[in-house]
Protein backbone atom coordinates (compact mmCIF):
# COMPACT_ATOMS: atom_id res chain seq x y z
CA UNK A 1 0.00 0.00 0.00
CA UNK A 2 2.83 2.37 0.81
CA UNK A 3 5.19 1.19 -1.93
CA UNK A 4 4.81 4.40 -4.00
CA UNK A 5 5.80 6.60 -1.03
CA UNK A 6 9.24 8.20 -0.92
CA UNK A 7 11.49 7.90 2.13
CA UNK A 8 10.57 11.43 3.32
CA UNK A 9 6.88 10.63 2.92
CA UNK A 10 7.27 7.38 4.87
CA UNK A 11 9.04 9.36 7.59
CA UNK A 12 6.06 11.76 7.76
CA UNK A 13 3.68 8.80 7.71
CA UNK A 14 5.51 7.16 10.62
CA UNK A 15 4.21 9.88 12.95
CA UNK A 16 0.65 8.88 12.11
CA UNK A 17 1.04 5.13 12.54
CA UNK A 18 0.33 3.52 15.91
CA UNK A 19 1.97 0.28 16.89
CA UNK A 20 -0.42 -1.96 18.83
CA UNK A 21 0.35 -5.36 20.30
CA UNK A 22 -2.42 -7.96 20.64
CA UNK A 23 -2.33 -11.17 22.67
CA UNK A 24 -3.41 -14.48 21.17
CA UNK A 25 -7.21 -14.52 21.39
CA UNK A 26 -7.61 -10.77 21.76
CA UNK A 27 -10.17 -9.00 19.59
CA UNK A 28 -8.88 -6.22 17.32
CA UNK A 29 -12.35 -5.06 16.35
CA UNK A 30 -15.89 -6.37 16.42
CA UNK A 31 -18.37 -6.93 13.62
CA UNK A 32 -20.88 -4.05 13.62
CA UNK A 33 -18.56 -1.72 15.49
CA UNK A 34 -17.97 1.71 13.90
CA UNK A 35 -14.72 1.45 11.90
CA UNK A 36 -12.20 4.24 12.26
CA UNK A 37 -9.04 2.94 10.63
CA UNK A 38 -7.04 0.18 9.01
CA UNK A 39 -4.28 -2.11 10.24
CA UNK A 40 -1.13 -3.57 8.68
CA UNK A 41 0.23 -6.78 10.17
CA UNK A 42 3.88 -6.52 11.24
CA UNK A 43 4.15 -9.88 12.99
CA UNK A 44 1.79 -12.68 13.96
CA UNK A 45 -1.45 -13.86 12.43
CA UNK A 46 -5.12 -12.91 12.71
CA UNK A 47 -8.46 -14.53 11.88
CA UNK A 48 -11.49 -12.77 10.42
CA UNK A 49 -14.92 -14.17 11.28
CA UNK A 50 -18.52 -13.20 10.59
CA UNK A 51 -21.64 -14.12 12.52
CA UNK A 52 -23.60 -16.93 10.82
CA UNK A 53 -27.05 -18.32 11.55
CA UNK A 54 -25.79 -20.87 14.06
CA UNK A 55 -22.09 -20.30 14.46
CA UNK A 56 -19.31 -17.94 13.47
CA UNK A 57 -18.01 -18.33 9.95
CA UNK A 58 -14.27 -17.95 9.37
CA UNK A 59 -13.64 -15.72 6.39
CA UNK A 60 -9.92 -16.19 6.31
CA UNK A 61 -6.58 -15.53 7.93
CA UNK A 62 -4.50 -12.39 7.75
CA UNK A 63 -0.73 -12.81 7.63
CA UNK A 64 2.34 -10.58 7.93
CA UNK A 65 2.42 -7.70 5.40
CA UNK A 66 -1.32 -7.83 4.75
CA UNK A 67 -3.73 -5.12 5.69
CA UNK A 68 -7.32 -5.20 6.89
CA UNK A 69 -10.09 -2.77 7.75
CA UNK A 70 -8.95 -0.44 4.96
CA UNK A 71 -12.48 0.61 3.93
CA UNK A 72 -12.80 2.52 7.21
CA UNK A 73 -9.99 4.79 6.02
CA UNK A 74 -12.33 6.15 3.38
CA UNK A 75 -15.64 6.28 5.19
CA UNK A 76 -16.86 5.52 8.72
CA UNK A 77 -19.16 2.54 8.69
CA UNK A 78 -19.86 -0.65 10.63
CA UNK A 79 -17.16 -3.34 10.45
CA UNK A 80 -18.41 -6.35 8.49
CA UNK A 81 -16.29 -8.89 10.37
CA UNK A 82 -14.66 -9.54 13.71
CA UNK A 83 -10.86 -9.80 13.66
CA UNK A 84 -9.12 -11.78 16.41
CA UNK A 85 -5.40 -12.34 16.93
CA UNK A 86 -4.59 -16.02 16.42
CA UNK A 87 -1.20 -15.61 18.05
CA UNK A 88 0.70 -12.72 19.65
CA UNK A 89 0.47 -10.08 16.94
CA UNK A 90 1.87 -6.64 16.27
CA UNK A 91 0.06 -4.31 13.91
CA UNK A 92 0.45 -0.75 12.69
CA UNK A 93 -2.80 1.15 12.89
CA UNK A 94 -3.73 4.17 10.85
CA UNK A 95 -6.87 6.16 11.49
CA UNK A 96 -9.11 8.16 9.22
CA UNK A 97 -8.98 11.48 11.14
CA UNK A 98 -5.18 11.36 11.07
CA UNK A 99 -5.12 10.42 7.38
CA UNK A 100 -7.40 13.40 6.63
CA UNK A 101 -5.06 15.66 8.62
CA UNK A 102 -2.04 14.23 6.80
CA UNK A 103 -3.71 14.58 3.40
CA UNK A 104 -4.55 18.22 4.17
CA UNK A 105 -0.95 19.02 5.00
CA UNK A 106 0.62 16.71 2.37
CA UNK A 107 -1.88 16.23 -0.46
CA UNK A 108 0.56 14.20 -2.58
CA UNK A 109 1.06 11.64 0.18
CA UNK A 110 -2.67 11.62 0.87
CA UNK A 111 -3.29 10.80 -2.78
CA UNK A 112 -0.77 7.95 -2.72
CA UNK A 113 -2.38 6.37 0.34
CA UNK A 114 -5.90 6.78 -1.06
CA UNK A 115 -4.69 5.17 -4.29
CA UNK A 116 -3.09 2.35 -2.27
CA UNK A 117 -6.39 1.70 -0.46
CA UNK A 118 -8.27 1.76 -3.77
CA UNK A 119 -5.82 -0.78 -5.28
CA UNK A 120 -6.21 -3.18 -2.33
CA UNK A 121 -9.98 -2.96 -2.62
CA UNK A 122 -9.84 -3.41 -6.38
CA UNK A 123 -7.81 -6.60 -5.96
CA UNK A 124 -10.33 -7.96 -3.44
CA UNK A 125 -13.31 -7.16 -5.68
CA UNK A 126 -11.59 -8.74 -8.68
CA UNK A 127 -11.01 -11.96 -6.74
CA UNK A 128 -14.67 -12.06 -5.65
CA UNK A 129 -15.82 -11.36 -9.22
CA UNK A 130 -13.62 -14.19 -10.51
CA UNK A 131 -15.41 -16.52 -8.15
CA UNK A 132 -12.52 -17.16 -5.82
CA UNK A 133 -13.33 -17.88 -2.15
CA UNK A 134 -14.55 -14.91 -0.10
CA UNK A 135 -11.59 -12.82 0.91
CA UNK A 136 -10.93 -10.92 4.09
CA UNK A 137 -12.35 -7.46 3.57
CA UNK A 138 -13.09 -6.75 7.17
CA UNK A 139 -14.09 -3.16 7.66
Amino acid at each position, binding site marked *: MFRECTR*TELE*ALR*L*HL*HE*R*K*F*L*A*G*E*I*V*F*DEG*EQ*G*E*GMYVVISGKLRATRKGLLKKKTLGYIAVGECFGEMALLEAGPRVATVVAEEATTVL*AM*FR*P*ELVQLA*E*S*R*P*RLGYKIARGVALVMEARLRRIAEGQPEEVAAT
Partner: protein
Amino acid sequence: MKDEFPSERSLEHPIIWVAVITGALGSIILLNAVAWLAFPLVLAIVLYYLVQPLLQRLQLSGITPNQALGIFLGAATILTLIASVTILPALFNSLADLQNQLPEYWARLQSVLHNNLLAIEGRFHFAKKAGLADGLQGQIDHFVAGSGKAYLADSILFLVHWLPSLLLVPFLTFFFLRDGTAFHRLILRAVPNAFFEKTLLLFDRMDGQMRAYFRGMFGLTLLDTVSLGLGLWFLGHGPGVFGFWDAMFLGLICAVFAWVPYVGSALGGLVAVATCAVKAPNEGGLLVSVVLLFLGVRLLDEFVYTPMTVGRALRMHPLITVMMIFSGGMLGGVYGLLLAMPLIGIFMVLGQMFGEVWFDPRLRARQQARNLLEKRLASKDLEL
Protein backbone atom coordinates in the same frame (compact mmCIF):
# COMPACT_ATOMS: atom_id res chain seq x y z
CA MET B 1 -20.76 23.87 13.74
CA LYS B 2 -21.63 20.28 13.03
CA ASP B 3 -20.81 18.92 16.48
CA GLU B 4 -21.54 20.81 19.60
CA PHE B 5 -18.65 21.13 22.01
CA PRO B 6 -20.09 18.70 24.54
CA SER B 7 -22.40 15.97 23.36
CA GLU B 8 -25.30 15.96 25.78
CA ARG B 9 -25.97 12.32 24.87
CA SER B 10 -22.95 11.04 26.79
CA LEU B 11 -23.21 13.52 29.65
CA GLU B 12 -26.43 12.05 31.00
CA HIS B 13 -24.82 10.13 33.83
CA PRO B 14 -24.95 12.14 37.09
CA ILE B 15 -21.50 10.86 38.14
CA ILE B 16 -20.05 12.40 34.97
CA TRP B 17 -21.70 15.75 35.74
CA VAL B 18 -20.37 15.79 39.30
CA ALA B 19 -16.91 14.82 38.01
CA VAL B 20 -17.01 17.55 35.32
CA ILE B 21 -17.88 20.32 37.80
CA THR B 22 -15.49 19.04 40.48
CA GLY B 23 -12.71 18.66 37.92
CA ALA B 24 -13.20 22.18 36.54
CA LEU B 25 -13.30 23.82 39.98
CA GLY B 26 -10.39 21.67 41.24
CA SER B 27 -8.34 22.69 38.23
CA ILE B 28 -9.06 26.37 38.89
CA ILE B 29 -7.68 25.96 42.44
CA LEU B 30 -4.66 24.06 41.12
CA LEU B 31 -3.97 26.52 38.30
CA ASN B 32 -4.35 29.44 40.68
CA ALA B 33 -1.72 27.86 42.92
CA VAL B 34 0.73 27.75 39.98
CA ALA B 35 -0.63 30.83 38.20
CA TRP B 36 2.80 31.88 36.97
CA LEU B 37 2.95 28.65 34.94
CA ALA B 38 -0.77 28.27 34.19
CA PHE B 39 -1.12 31.65 32.51
CA PRO B 40 1.64 31.12 29.91
CA LEU B 41 0.49 27.52 29.42
CA VAL B 42 -3.06 28.60 28.58
CA LEU B 43 -1.76 31.38 26.31
CA ALA B 44 0.56 28.90 24.57
CA ILE B 45 -2.34 26.47 23.96
CA VAL B 46 -4.44 29.29 22.49
CA LEU B 47 -1.52 30.39 20.28
CA TYR B 48 -0.94 26.79 19.19
CA TYR B 49 -4.52 26.48 17.95
CA LEU B 50 -4.33 29.87 16.21
CA VAL B 51 -0.99 29.25 14.49
CA GLN B 52 -1.46 25.59 13.53
CA PRO B 53 -3.81 26.27 10.56
CA LEU B 54 -1.28 28.79 9.23
CA LEU B 55 1.46 26.15 9.33
CA GLN B 56 -0.85 23.68 7.57
CA ARG B 57 -1.40 26.24 4.82
CA LEU B 58 2.36 26.63 4.44
CA GLN B 59 2.74 22.85 4.25
CA LEU B 60 0.18 22.74 1.46
CA SER B 61 2.67 24.59 -0.70
CA GLY B 62 4.88 21.53 -0.51
CA ILE B 63 7.31 22.29 2.31
CA THR B 64 7.97 20.06 5.32
CA PRO B 65 6.45 20.75 8.77
CA ASN B 66 9.85 21.80 10.16
CA GLN B 67 10.44 24.22 7.27
CA ALA B 68 6.95 25.70 7.79
CA LEU B 69 7.69 26.17 11.49
CA GLY B 70 11.03 27.81 10.64
CA ILE B 71 9.37 30.23 8.18
CA PHE B 72 6.71 31.10 10.73
CA LEU B 73 9.27 31.68 13.49
CA GLY B 74 11.37 33.86 11.22
CA ALA B 75 8.35 35.96 10.21
CA ALA B 76 7.18 36.22 13.83
CA THR B 77 10.64 37.35 14.98
CA ILE B 78 10.86 40.01 12.25
CA LEU B 79 7.35 41.27 13.04
CA THR B 80 8.16 41.41 16.76
CA LEU B 81 11.32 43.40 16.04
CA ILE B 82 9.43 45.83 13.78
CA ALA B 83 6.70 46.19 16.41
CA SER B 84 9.30 46.82 19.12
CA VAL B 85 10.85 49.60 17.04
CA THR B 86 7.63 51.25 15.86
CA ILE B 87 4.77 50.50 18.25
CA LEU B 88 6.54 50.31 21.60
CA PRO B 89 7.86 53.92 21.63
CA ALA B 90 4.37 55.20 20.68
CA LEU B 91 2.86 53.01 23.39
CA PHE B 92 5.28 54.34 26.02
CA ASN B 93 4.48 57.93 24.94
CA SER B 94 0.76 57.22 25.28
CA LEU B 95 1.34 55.67 28.71
CA ALA B 96 3.34 58.75 29.77
CA ASP B 97 0.50 61.01 28.56
CA LEU B 98 -2.01 58.85 30.38
CA GLN B 99 0.07 59.07 33.55
CA ASN B 100 0.04 62.87 33.31
CA GLN B 101 -3.68 62.99 32.67
CA LEU B 102 -4.60 60.36 35.25
CA PRO B 103 -4.98 62.79 38.24
CA GLU B 104 -7.30 64.97 36.16
CA TYR B 105 -9.38 61.96 35.03
CA TRP B 106 -9.52 60.68 38.59
CA ALA B 107 -10.74 64.08 39.84
CA ARG B 108 -13.36 64.18 37.06
CA LEU B 109 -14.59 60.67 37.84
CA GLN B 110 -14.96 61.58 41.51
CA SER B 111 -16.77 64.77 40.53
CA VAL B 112 -19.19 62.87 38.23
CA LEU B 113 -19.88 60.33 40.99
CA HIS B 114 -20.32 63.09 43.58
CA ASN B 115 -22.67 65.14 41.37
CA ASN B 116 -24.81 62.10 40.53
CA LEU B 117 -25.06 61.09 44.18
CA LEU B 118 -26.01 64.70 45.07
CA ALA B 119 -28.73 64.50 42.43
CA ILE B 120 -29.98 61.25 43.99
CA GLU B 121 -29.90 62.91 47.41
CA GLY B 122 -32.00 65.77 45.97
CA ARG B 123 -34.64 63.31 44.82
CA PHE B 124 -34.66 60.77 47.63
CA HIS B 125 -34.88 61.87 51.22
CA PHE B 126 -33.41 58.67 52.66
CA ALA B 127 -30.27 59.08 50.52
CA LYS B 128 -29.79 62.61 51.84
CA LYS B 129 -30.30 61.38 55.38
CA ALA B 130 -27.66 58.69 54.84
CA GLY B 131 -25.21 61.29 53.47
CA LEU B 132 -24.55 59.15 50.37
CA ALA B 133 -22.36 61.65 48.47
CA ASP B 134 -20.19 62.72 51.40
CA GLY B 135 -20.02 59.18 52.76
CA LEU B 136 -18.68 57.77 49.46
CA GLN B 137 -16.26 60.66 49.08
CA GLY B 138 -14.96 59.99 52.60
CA GLN B 139 -14.53 56.28 51.80
CA ILE B 140 -12.64 57.09 48.58
CA ASP B 141 -10.33 59.57 50.37
CA HIS B 142 -9.69 57.01 53.11
CA PHE B 143 -8.94 54.26 50.55
CA VAL B 144 -6.58 56.46 48.52
CA ALA B 145 -4.72 57.65 51.62
CA GLY B 146 -4.48 54.22 53.25
CA SER B 147 -4.93 50.77 51.74
CA GLY B 148 -5.05 52.09 48.15
CA LYS B 149 -1.28 52.56 48.18
CA ALA B 150 -0.80 49.07 49.56
CA TYR B 151 -3.07 47.65 46.78
CA LEU B 152 -1.07 49.54 44.17
CA ALA B 153 2.21 48.22 45.58
CA ASP B 154 0.77 44.68 45.68
CA SER B 155 -0.46 44.99 42.09
CA ILE B 156 2.94 46.20 40.88
CA LEU B 157 4.69 43.39 42.75
CA PHE B 158 2.22 40.91 41.24
CA LEU B 159 2.97 42.21 37.74
CA VAL B 160 6.73 42.06 38.33
CA HIS B 161 6.30 38.50 39.60
CA TRP B 162 4.34 37.05 36.67
CA LEU B 163 5.43 39.16 33.69
CA PRO B 164 8.71 37.22 33.22
CA SER B 165 6.67 34.02 33.04
CA LEU B 166 5.20 35.35 29.77
CA LEU B 167 8.60 34.62 28.23
CA LEU B 168 7.59 30.98 28.50
CA VAL B 169 4.75 31.50 26.00
CA PRO B 170 6.81 31.41 22.76
CA PHE B 171 8.96 28.60 24.19
CA LEU B 172 5.94 26.40 25.03
CA THR B 173 4.15 27.25 21.77
CA PHE B 174 7.23 26.27 19.75
CA PHE B 175 7.36 22.82 21.35
CA PHE B 176 3.60 22.32 21.05
CA LEU B 177 3.87 23.10 17.34
CA ARG B 178 6.99 21.03 16.74
CA ASP B 179 6.25 17.97 18.88
CA GLY B 180 2.44 18.10 19.13
CA THR B 181 1.98 14.90 17.09
CA ALA B 182 4.63 13.05 19.09
CA PHE B 183 2.99 14.07 22.42
CA HIS B 184 -0.31 12.91 21.02
CA ARG B 185 1.12 9.49 20.15
CA LEU B 186 2.77 9.21 23.55
CA ILE B 187 -0.54 9.77 25.33
CA LEU B 188 -2.37 7.36 23.03
CA ARG B 189 0.20 4.65 23.68
CA ALA B 190 -1.15 4.38 27.23
CA VAL B 191 -4.70 3.66 26.04
CA PRO B 192 -5.67 -0.06 26.17
CA ASN B 193 -6.40 -1.81 22.85
CA ALA B 194 -10.13 -2.19 23.53
CA PHE B 195 -10.67 1.56 23.95
CA PHE B 196 -8.09 2.69 21.42
CA GLU B 197 -10.14 3.39 18.28
CA LYS B 198 -12.88 5.20 20.16
CA THR B 199 -10.43 7.23 22.26
CA LEU B 200 -8.57 8.27 19.14
CA LEU B 201 -11.78 9.39 17.49
CA LEU B 202 -12.84 11.35 20.57
CA PHE B 203 -9.38 12.93 20.89
CA ASP B 204 -9.66 14.05 17.29
CA ARG B 205 -13.14 15.48 17.93
CA MET B 206 -11.90 17.28 21.04
CA ASP B 207 -8.92 18.69 19.15
CA GLY B 208 -11.15 19.95 16.33
CA GLN B 209 -13.63 21.52 18.73
CA MET B 210 -10.91 23.21 20.80
CA ARG B 211 -9.42 24.61 17.60
CA ALA B 212 -12.85 25.84 16.46
CA TYR B 213 -13.49 27.34 19.91
CA PHE B 214 -10.24 29.30 20.17
CA ARG B 215 -10.36 30.48 16.55
CA GLY B 216 -14.00 31.42 17.06
CA MET B 217 -13.15 33.40 20.20
CA PHE B 218 -10.39 35.17 18.29
CA GLY B 219 -12.82 36.08 15.49
CA LEU B 220 -15.48 37.14 17.99
CA THR B 221 -13.00 39.43 19.77
CA LEU B 222 -12.05 41.02 16.43
CA LEU B 223 -15.69 41.57 15.44
CA ASP B 224 -16.58 42.97 18.87
CA THR B 225 -13.55 45.28 18.82
CA VAL B 226 -14.38 46.65 15.37
CA SER B 227 -18.12 47.06 16.10
CA LEU B 228 -17.61 48.73 19.47
CA GLY B 229 -14.61 50.75 18.30
CA LEU B 230 -16.38 52.11 15.23
CA GLY B 231 -19.54 52.77 17.24
CA LEU B 232 -17.65 54.62 19.98
CA TRP B 233 -15.67 56.59 17.42
CA PHE B 234 -18.86 57.51 15.53
CA LEU B 235 -20.54 58.67 18.74
CA GLY B 236 -17.54 60.29 20.35
CA HIS B 237 -15.56 61.98 17.58
CA GLY B 238 -18.14 64.81 17.22
CA PRO B 239 -17.84 66.09 20.81
CA GLY B 240 -14.08 65.33 20.62
CA VAL B 241 -14.24 62.55 23.23
CA PHE B 242 -12.58 59.77 21.22
CA GLY B 243 -10.01 59.68 18.46
CA PHE B 244 -10.16 56.66 16.13
CA TRP B 245 -7.44 54.65 17.87
CA ASP B 246 -8.73 55.59 21.38
CA ALA B 247 -12.14 54.22 20.40
CA MET B 248 -10.60 51.05 18.95
CA PHE B 249 -8.48 50.51 22.06
CA LEU B 250 -11.54 50.90 24.31
CA GLY B 251 -13.44 48.54 22.00
CA LEU B 252 -10.62 45.98 22.37
CA ILE B 253 -10.68 46.25 26.18
CA CYS B 254 -14.45 45.72 26.22
CA ALA B 255 -14.16 42.80 23.76
CA VAL B 256 -11.56 41.15 26.02
CA PHE B 257 -13.81 41.68 29.06
CA ALA B 258 -16.55 39.91 27.10
CA TRP B 259 -14.52 36.67 27.28
CA VAL B 260 -16.16 36.26 30.67
CA PRO B 261 -19.81 35.64 29.72
CA TYR B 262 -22.54 37.98 31.08
CA VAL B 263 -20.39 39.51 33.86
CA GLY B 264 -17.61 40.59 31.50
CA SER B 265 -19.95 42.27 29.01
CA ALA B 266 -21.59 44.29 31.78
CA LEU B 267 -18.18 45.27 33.17
CA GLY B 268 -17.00 46.31 29.68
CA GLY B 269 -20.10 48.49 29.30
CA LEU B 270 -19.42 50.10 32.66
CA VAL B 271 -15.81 50.84 31.68
CA ALA B 272 -16.94 52.50 28.42
CA VAL B 273 -19.66 54.54 30.16
CA ALA B 274 -17.23 55.58 32.92
CA THR B 275 -14.67 56.64 30.29
CA CYS B 276 -17.30 58.79 28.53
CA ALA B 277 -18.44 60.25 31.86
CA VAL B 278 -14.85 61.20 32.70
CA LYS B 279 -13.97 62.60 29.27
CA ALA B 280 -17.25 64.47 28.67
CA PRO B 281 -19.09 64.86 31.98
CA ASN B 282 -21.64 67.27 30.53
CA GLU B 283 -22.65 65.09 27.55
CA GLY B 284 -25.65 63.22 28.99
CA GLY B 285 -26.86 62.24 25.53
CA LEU B 286 -23.52 60.61 24.76
CA LEU B 287 -23.80 58.38 27.84
CA VAL B 288 -27.25 57.18 26.77
CA SER B 289 -25.97 56.57 23.22
CA VAL B 290 -23.03 54.53 24.54
CA VAL B 291 -25.38 52.41 26.66
CA LEU B 292 -27.60 51.85 23.61
CA LEU B 293 -24.53 51.01 21.51
CA PHE B 294 -23.52 48.37 24.07
CA LEU B 295 -27.00 46.86 24.09
CA GLY B 296 -26.99 46.81 20.29
CA VAL B 297 -23.58 45.13 20.07
CA ARG B 298 -24.66 42.66 22.78
CA LEU B 299 -27.65 41.66 20.61
CA LEU B 300 -25.46 41.44 17.50
CA ASP B 301 -23.05 39.30 19.51
CA GLU B 302 -25.76 36.94 20.66
CA PHE B 303 -27.64 36.51 17.38
CA VAL B 304 -25.08 37.11 14.63
CA TYR B 305 -21.42 37.07 15.72
CA THR B 306 -21.43 34.14 18.16
CA PRO B 307 -23.32 31.76 15.81
CA MET B 308 -20.91 32.88 13.03
CA THR B 309 -17.72 32.31 15.01
CA VAL B 310 -17.86 30.19 18.16
CA GLY B 311 -21.09 28.46 17.07
CA ARG B 312 -22.91 26.64 19.78
CA ALA B 313 -19.70 25.79 21.57
CA LEU B 314 -19.92 25.88 25.34
CA ARG B 315 -23.64 26.54 25.17
CA MET B 316 -25.03 25.69 28.56
CA HIS B 317 -27.75 26.89 30.86
CA PRO B 318 -27.14 30.55 31.88
CA LEU B 319 -27.64 29.67 35.55
CA ILE B 320 -24.84 27.08 35.44
CA THR B 321 -22.66 29.52 33.48
CA VAL B 322 -23.07 32.34 36.01
CA MET B 323 -22.62 29.97 38.97
CA MET B 324 -19.43 28.57 37.41
CA ILE B 325 -18.05 32.05 36.69
CA PHE B 326 -18.67 33.26 40.23
CA SER B 327 -17.35 30.02 41.77
CA GLY B 328 -14.28 30.33 39.52
CA GLY B 329 -13.80 33.95 40.58
CA MET B 330 -14.15 33.03 44.26
CA LEU B 331 -11.68 30.12 44.01
CA GLY B 332 -9.18 31.56 41.55
CA GLY B 333 -9.64 35.34 41.35
CA VAL B 334 -9.11 36.83 37.89
CA TYR B 335 -7.69 33.50 36.59
CA GLY B 336 -10.78 31.73 37.83
CA LEU B 337 -13.09 34.21 36.10
CA LEU B 338 -11.25 33.85 32.79
CA LEU B 339 -10.62 30.11 32.92
CA ALA B 340 -13.93 28.89 34.36
CA MET B 341 -15.72 28.52 31.00
CA PRO B 342 -12.87 27.06 28.91
CA LEU B 343 -12.09 24.63 31.75
CA ILE B 344 -15.66 23.44 32.12
CA GLY B 345 -15.73 23.03 28.33
CA ILE B 346 -12.60 20.86 28.42
CA PHE B 347 -13.92 18.79 31.33
CA MET B 348 -17.25 18.33 29.57
CA VAL B 349 -15.44 16.89 26.56
CA LEU B 350 -13.29 14.67 28.82
CA GLY B 351 -16.46 13.58 30.61
CA GLN B 352 -18.04 12.82 27.26
CA MET B 353 -14.99 10.78 26.23
CA PHE B 354 -14.93 8.86 29.49
CA GLY B 355 -18.69 8.30 29.37
CA GLU B 356 -18.66 6.98 25.82
CA VAL B 357 -15.70 4.69 26.42
CA TRP B 358 -16.26 3.49 29.99
CA PHE B 359 -20.01 2.95 29.83
CA ASP B 360 -19.79 0.86 26.65
CA PRO B 361 -20.31 -2.70 28.02
CA ARG B 362 -18.76 -4.40 24.99
CA LEU B 363 -15.53 -2.41 25.21
CA ARG B 364 -15.27 -3.07 28.94
CA ALA B 365 -15.86 -6.79 28.35
CA ARG B 366 -13.09 -6.79 25.76
CA GLN B 367 -10.74 -5.11 28.19
CA GLN B 368 -11.62 -7.66 30.88
CA ALA B 369 -10.98 -10.48 28.39
CA ARG B 370 -7.56 -8.97 27.63
CA ASN B 371 -6.77 -8.79 31.34
CA LEU B 372 -7.72 -12.45 31.66
CA LEU B 373 -5.53 -13.40 28.70
CA GLU B 374 -2.63 -11.49 30.22
CA LYS B 375 -3.12 -13.24 33.55
CA ARG B 376 -3.27 -16.65 31.89
CA LEU B 377 -0.15 -15.91 29.89
CA ALA B 378 1.73 -14.72 32.97
CA SER B 379 0.83 -17.82 35.00
CA LYS B 380 1.16 -20.36 32.17
CA ASP B 381 4.11 -22.27 33.60
CA LEU B 382 3.13 -21.88 37.22
CA GLU B 383 1.38 -24.58 39.22
CA LEU B 384 -1.10 -22.55 41.27
